[in-house]
């Protein structure tokens, strides 16, 4: 795909990552060859600006191309890169990008993994039209959030739910051992 980087997406994360390069929104991008809509994410504008990623809407589907984060825009540019069909989020951002803490520091994670697992991950990423990193980061993040949430959630059977609800509505009298425990608390724990 060839695309011309003329759109500057206002993205606070870029501003903070890049420090001195202040992004501005300047209008829709144009894409060579076809009348289409899309966007490029760059830091800075014009010659020498940092081109991060670009999207292109072609024939109803969204095409995404990713440049090396180090790629600079040369002139008002055309750049050739591999393309993927991609599910972007409603704001046209990379799906994992919105889940990343915006503006926070970027960390790196290196992982050794069996070759066959790597193959499966790559295949899955291809199916979703994402890069391997995007796919892994998004999937791991989702799994982590779910794990944390699950740890707090206590899923109970209908019966247990009913028992707790009834006990809250009509609290039973405390067992005598519990009363003793509270007395011991006062006797043993100084700042109780």
């Amino acid at each position: 795909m060839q695309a011309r980087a003329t759109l500057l997406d206002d993205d606070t994360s870029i501003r903070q990552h890049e420090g001195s390069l202040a992004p501005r929104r300047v209008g829709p991008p144009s894409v060579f060859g076809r009348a289409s809509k899309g966007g490029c994410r760059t830091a800075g504008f014009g010659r020498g600006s940092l081109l991060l990623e670009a999207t292109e809407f072609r024939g109803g589907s969204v095409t995404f191309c990713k440049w090396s984060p180090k790629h600079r825009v040369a002139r008002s540019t055309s750049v050739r890169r591999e393309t993927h069909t991609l599910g972007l989020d409603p704001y046209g951002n990379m799906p994992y990008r919105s889940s990343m803490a915006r503006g926070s520091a970027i960390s790196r994670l290196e992982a050794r993994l069996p070759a066959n697992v790597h193959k499966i991950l790559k295949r899955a990423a291809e199916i979703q039209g994402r890069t391997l990193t995007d796919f892994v980061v998004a999937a791991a993040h989702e799994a982590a959030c779910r794990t944390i949430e699950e740890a707090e959630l206590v899923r109970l059977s209908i019966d247990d739910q009913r028992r707790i609800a009834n006990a809250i509505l009509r609290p039973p009298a405390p067992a005598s051992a519990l009363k003793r425990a509270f007395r011991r608390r006062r006797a043993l724990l100084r700042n109780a």
Partner: protein
Amino acid sequence: MKPPFLVELLGAHDREGFSCGTESLDTYFRSQVTQDVRRHVTNCFVAVDADTRIVAGFFTIAAASIPTPDLPGAVTKKLPRYPSLPAIRVGRLAVDSRFRGRGLGGALLADAAARGIASEVAAYAMLVDAKDEAAVAFYEHHGFQRLASQPRSLFLVLATAAKALGEPGPRRT
């Protein structure tokens, strides 16, 4: 007599010497609990011997929530919050073997409940996780009820504990 123990948030306490006899609890307290605290998975309180600063016992306490999607509207309408009940969870509670037989375990359990009652974040129930049948018996003795769907977990509503908290006890000296 002054109460012999202080309850403190886990900080720079000596955790190495702690031994309650249950290997998994000891290991957890020695090597894992600080990580959980740092990651805000749980909080940990310790009972410290006021004279020697030896850790005599500890408990971990965390926020929990009990979804009640299956309850009929007539019931949930009367409940404090819908669709899930805020609760506290005491994941681990242990007393060092050297400090057994004085009711410190019960005192720590009561302290955890008192923290749930006093907490600014409303909590209506207290959940505990029992390591083994002996622990289940300990909690049942204090009026906790087993959960059918989580056999090693028991609950007590904090309103019940509040009644016990309000009972007059011996005066502090």
